[in-house]
């Protein structure tokens, strides 16, 4: 990608700002964390919990509120796989890709799940019902393979079992 010479800088005040409803969530998260820059990750997690993701334009108020730069906040968001900059589907299905699950058919299970929901790991289904994510170990290795939907763990997963889980996720709101 080529970023051409810009004749005149567009300053932040000239760029879009965060919608009020989201801005108030940011303000509350900052206040709850005492504007402490060492709590950046906690702030981001709080905001994501409430908004479902971290909007691009939230980075500036977060940075200002914590006495950090936008680049630092962006760097942190981009480092952690849990943090997302786009909204996820209504349910997040994490499918373990690690060795214990590999040893018990995890690769085939992943393929099956991708086929059934119709998207790959890291993607969201067209109907917005499910986001598939790779996860490396859920700590359920004594009964692999394992998945986690939202915060519900499921172990010793079979294709029949996961089909029911996916069906439920698609029909539930």
């Amino acid at each position, binding site marked *: 990608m080529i970023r051409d010479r810009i004749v*005149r*800088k567009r300053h932040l005040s000239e760029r879009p700002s965060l919608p009020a409803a989201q801005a108030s969530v940011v303000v509350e998260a900052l206040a709850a964390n005492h504007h402490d820059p060492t709590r950046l990750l906690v702030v981001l997690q709080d905001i994501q919990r409430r908004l479902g993701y971290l909007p691009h334009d939230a980075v500036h108020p977060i940075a200002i509120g914590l006495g950090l730069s936008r680049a630092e906040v962006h760097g942190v968001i981009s480092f952690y796989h849990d943090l997302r900059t786009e909204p996820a589907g209504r349910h997040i299905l994490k499918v373990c890709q690690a060795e214990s699950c590999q040893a018990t058919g995890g690769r085939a299970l992943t393929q099956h799940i991708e086929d059934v929901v119709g998207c790959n790991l890291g993607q969201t289904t067209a109907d917005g019902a499910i986001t598939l994510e790779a996860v490396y170990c859920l700590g359920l290795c004594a009964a692999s393979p394992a998945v986690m939907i939202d915060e519900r763990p499921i172990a010793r997963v079979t294709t029949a079992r996961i089909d029911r889980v996916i069906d439920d996720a698609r029909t539930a709101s």
Partner: protein
Amino acid sequence: MPIPVKPDQSTITTCAYCGVGCGFKAETSGGQIVRMTPWKEGKANHGHSCVKGRFAFDYYRHPDRVRSPMIRVSIEDPWREVSWDEAFAHAAGELKRIQETYGSGSVGAVSSSRCTNEEIYLMQKFARVGLRNNNIDNCSRICHSPTQFGLSATLGAGAASQHFDSILRSDVILVVGANPTEGHPVFGSMMKRSVRRGANLLVIDPRRTETVDSPHCRASVHLALRPGTNVLVLDSIAHVVVTERLYDEAFVRARCDWDDFELWMSQVGDARYSPDVVGPEAGLEPDDIRELARRYAAGPNSTIYYGLGVTEHSQGSTGVMCLGNLAMACGMIGREGVGVNPLRGQGNVQGGSCLGSWPHMFTGYRFVTDAATRAVFENEWKIDLDGEPGLRLPNMFDAAVAGSFKGLYIQGEDPVQSDPNRHHVEAALRNMECVIVQDLYETETTKFAHVLLPGSSSLEKNGTFTNAERRVSMVRKIVEPVAGLEDWEITVGMINAMGYELKYDHPSEVLDEIARTSPAYSGMSFELIERVGSVQWPCNTAAPEGTEVLHTVTFPRGKGSFMLTEYVPTKERVDDRFPLLLTTGRILSQYNAGTQTRRTANNAWYDDDVLDISADDAAQRGLRNGDRVRVASRYGETELSITVSGRVHPGVVYTTFHFAHTMVNAVTSDLNDWATNCPEYKVTAVEVTKVTKVGKVTKVTS
């Protein structure tokens, strides 16, 4: 090809932009500058730089450069290119004719802090031996003349007490009316480094500047005072120091005049300066004033840095004295990590102050009225000198308007854009019979000139600069001057043309002459600077390689003196017609009147002056981001675009002054510092209204 050009030569020189005076390596290929890189051994910058010094050097080869001397009889006439000799002869002839007609005092000169120490020295020599009067002033009149006055009165030396690095040893940093990250960026970076290492930052500034709050650098106390209340607030801080007995009695008894101190205590200790009284008037929480005072006094090493936000007021000199008093009272002077330090705007403001371009002082701040000092120069110059102080620049303009002042030699300055009360300056210049301007480009001022001498940029000459920490560094010629002569050679040409014969082969000889005549520079020479890189004055037998920290044992004036600093409100007041206070400042990418930076790609960051206004004030006036507004004061009006900003409080608006067409100085007040005539750029009552049609700048005649 992706392979970059490899420079064939590299020359160490000093940046001419701000008062930090960074060391740079000018790298050339085939005689053209291909880049400037910061010099790691530069003692002011240690290898760091800012966008101006590092990149904004293309101005030197801009098509707008004046490339030949030019003269004209009337300012209505077109310019006529002439030889240097003809230009000198014409200019000198005119000045002599005027003196014969209107008297010796009818002409004068003004020097520029953009020029080298040697050139500034030669300008005052031009006035004194060429014009045979003391009508010589310099541009620090409009910025830091109160520093000279206020610090001399309290400490005895009108200069920064510290070296820049000293701030790394500070526990508490008090910044007053300055925005180093924009105005003195390389020093600003050092300040931020100190804050990141744990120093406590205190800021007094009407605006929430980047210095107040930026990543990893947040002021623990910010006094966002109402513009114009500096002295009131500083006195209130002193009040807390006195009434809570936070002062360093041992230091004061040992180093200062105790009687002065007691007098001062009784003044600032009065209830009228209590934070509870001052807070509401200055728009501050009383406890914030107390907190700042306590933190400053607690140290253990507290330092003060201040800028034009202190000096450019009707009580500018008083404000500087407040700072000197405060530092002495708390014992925060005379070692690393403490001190009182002006942040100088231009590359050589300190040099401009030191080198005698004053109507009342020779080099080293010695008075022309003093016969012994005069004798030093009479002996050196073999000529009798006038013992009467000359005219200050504003007085020259007043006299010109009145008809008694008719000729002026201006070195590298643009008073029409920079000085207050633009219409008054224009009228004065229009009334003159010979205005000689030596500059890189045609400017607002050259419109009124009769002789135009092509100046040389700092990349085209040899000499020295003295930065804001008193550091004298080498300026070296990288490329040939466009019109063949370096600025110092031009002034020498003018002096000769005036009939005083003199010859220097190299500016080092001028510095040698300065050393012979000026105690603080007595040890200074090009050889020494070449050898050690740069030298902070005083440099003499006691300090053969210069002095980093001043006032370690005594003050130059002996005992430190506490000056009384009664608060006198400015006459500039808000009222129903002009309910907002306008204050001014600069931004990083542009420099002063912008004559250089506007001729570089730095315009990519800011291509116009913009008015910052609070959301409340904007809403009340139905204004939105980007709207064009008319800014009107009692003195004039102009048009600007606005930015709705959280950096200014309601009631305050702010703009920069880098772009000629906005003519911000048409709006600013006529008021000036009681002691030095430094204009009150920082406080003007204005009203802001939306405009739909682009109008033009006008000055209200009053």
